[in-house]
């Protein structure tokens, strides 16, 4: 064991750094999925598609700006702008146009509806961006690499993945906690999450809260995709992979838990990148093994609260 550790220490270090960057991205998607569920009581299967579309939009916008000869730093503006556009347009369209019709319906119906949305968005993405891989790694290259000391060795790692991704995820986590606990709008959202009827009776416009939350969640997914776009090539199927992975994170943490989602994102992100280096064939299996292991012991998730049974 000790010998094996020594031999593979460098690999494990790399897996740890990779996992951290990856966990940051997964967290961005999962936290939006979780917030939307908390308020709307709907798991949006199309959430992963918003991630993918955010990524594509960011890559296209970045390439477009670069082709116009604008300075390099506008690439970062493109990331945020693309995410805001995708969230700001698709969010309200989906919530107003479709989801509004099915609030309070059976869960199976709601699942089917968001699954239909998922089918539509996956093809819309293919129609717009085609099936050829798209990539724009300018924002990644621009920041260069950092030598991370690891024991006696150093691991060269991109500054973008080392600082920007975990930084944004941490800022989202802290910002969200502050927003939900300290601002009026945030408290209104929490109120609707806890007891919609009582909140409405106090004069809160639940429909506005639904719209706001869904748009915000969509924006977070798109931002996750935009931030991911420099680190990977975008291919069809990204949306499907993202929704199952972020659901695994949310299920592991327990539905509706925000801080918990951060911890399970770390757990699953690092687990997955360890598998990438050690047993690449089983890369996709590891997140679900972690999830299944957690769910077998705690069916409500690591931080979830048991709901009372209705009679």
């Amino acid at each position, binding site marked *: 064991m000790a010998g094996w550790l020594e031999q593979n220490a460098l690999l494990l270090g790399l897996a740890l750094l990779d996992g951290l960057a990856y966990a940051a991205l997964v967290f961005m998607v999962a936290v939006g999925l979780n917030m939307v569920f908390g308020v709307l009581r709907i798991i949006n299967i199309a959430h992963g598609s918003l991630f993918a579309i955010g990524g594509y939009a960011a890559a296209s916008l970045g390439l477009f700006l670069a082709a116009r000869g604008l300075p390099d730093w506008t690439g970062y503006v493109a990331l945020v702008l693309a995410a805001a556009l995708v969230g700001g347009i698709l969010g309200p369209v989906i919530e107003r146009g479709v989801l509004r019709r099915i609030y309070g319906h059976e869960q*199976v119906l709601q699942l*089917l509806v968001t699954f239909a949305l998922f089918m539509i968005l*996956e093809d819309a993405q293919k129609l717009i961006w085609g099936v050829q891989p798209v990539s724009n790694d300018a924002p990644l290259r621009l920041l260069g690499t950092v030598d991370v000391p690891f024991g006696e060795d150093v691991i060269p790692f991109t500054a973008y993945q080392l600082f920007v991704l975990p930084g944004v995820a941490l800022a989202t986590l802290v910002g969200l906690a502050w927003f939900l606990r300290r601002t009026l709008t945030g408290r209104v959202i929490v109120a609707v999450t806890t007891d919609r009827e009582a909140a409405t009776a106090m004069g809160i416009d639940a429909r506005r809260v639904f719209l706001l939350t869904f748009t915000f969640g969509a924006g977070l997914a798109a931002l996750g995709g935009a931030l991911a776009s420099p680190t990977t090539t975008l291919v069809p199927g990204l949306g499907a992979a993202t929704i199952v992975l972020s659901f695994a994170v949310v299920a592991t943490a327990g539905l509706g838990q925000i801080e918990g989602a951060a911890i399970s994102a770390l757990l699953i992100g690092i687990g997955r990148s360890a598998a990438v280096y050690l047993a690449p064939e089983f890369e996709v299996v590891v997140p*679900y093994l972690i999830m299944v292991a957690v769910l077998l012991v705690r069916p409500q998730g690591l931080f979830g609260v048991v709901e009372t049974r209705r009679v």
Partner: protein
Amino acid sequence: MRRGAEISLALLGVAGVLAAAWAAPWLRFVLTIALAKGIAVLGILLLLRAGQVSFGHALYLSSGAYVVAFLAPSLPEALLLLPLAALIAGLIGLVAGLFLARYRDIFFGMLNLAISMVFYSLLEKLYELTRGTDGIRVEPPRVAGLALTLEAYVWAMLLVALVLAVGFGMLVRAYLASPMGQALAGIKTRETRLEFMGVSARRVLLAAYVLSALMGGVAGAIVGMTTRHVTPLLAYWTTSGELVFIAILGGAGGALGPFLGAVTYELVRVYAAAAFAEAWQAILGVVLLLVILFAPGGLWGMLLGLLGRRPGRAP
């Protein structure tokens, strides 16, 4: 709906399939695939009766197909491959079901999706075993010990699919009417009450789940032997989506709905999928939304409405 009327409709359907296959040779292939998918959709229907939807039944379809692909070289007999595919898919369903039957609604749907996605990427990545995305070619097996010409083989597969479709249709109809089937509906309305009566909801759902996996395996074996080329695409979420789509399109009210939906879907697909290849999933999505929002009984419900009967139950 009266039993007699349903039987005559089913007989009418069987006659229609045979007549169409006799008149138009190219339809034989399409109808065999449609009947196979109809059998798989019967499984989705069982789960819908309990208010649960699985976005991962492509797992069982593809395991049936891969059983055929792996075993056909050493065991070239269709009538042995079919029960083997059913058995293995049923066993996979039992193992997965022991875990999944604890969950409902969102978790049930998404965990099914997750398991099938894992299976898909294993099929894709374990190249040594599955030849990855290239897939495996299947030589036509013998049917009842006879090595058939290609034309006779296509007919034989259609007849096998038809017999199995009628058989499983009757089985599901009887199952839904049995106490086990009635308890499924109980899971949908209020599970706790079921438990108060001493019925284990978990076991009821597990039994239905294993049956649905078994039917998925049979369907996959027929698909594998008919297309004679098995690829991981059969395990991809789009295949699961297709099954759910057909279930909703056909209507979850009765055992004929899945076949009505499957035949309609495959016929439209033959003409339309080539013209709208890039937007096919999107079109399915839009139709799915429209059916859910405006015609919750599906085609079966509409048909019943036309015949002046009580529309089938919404999913």
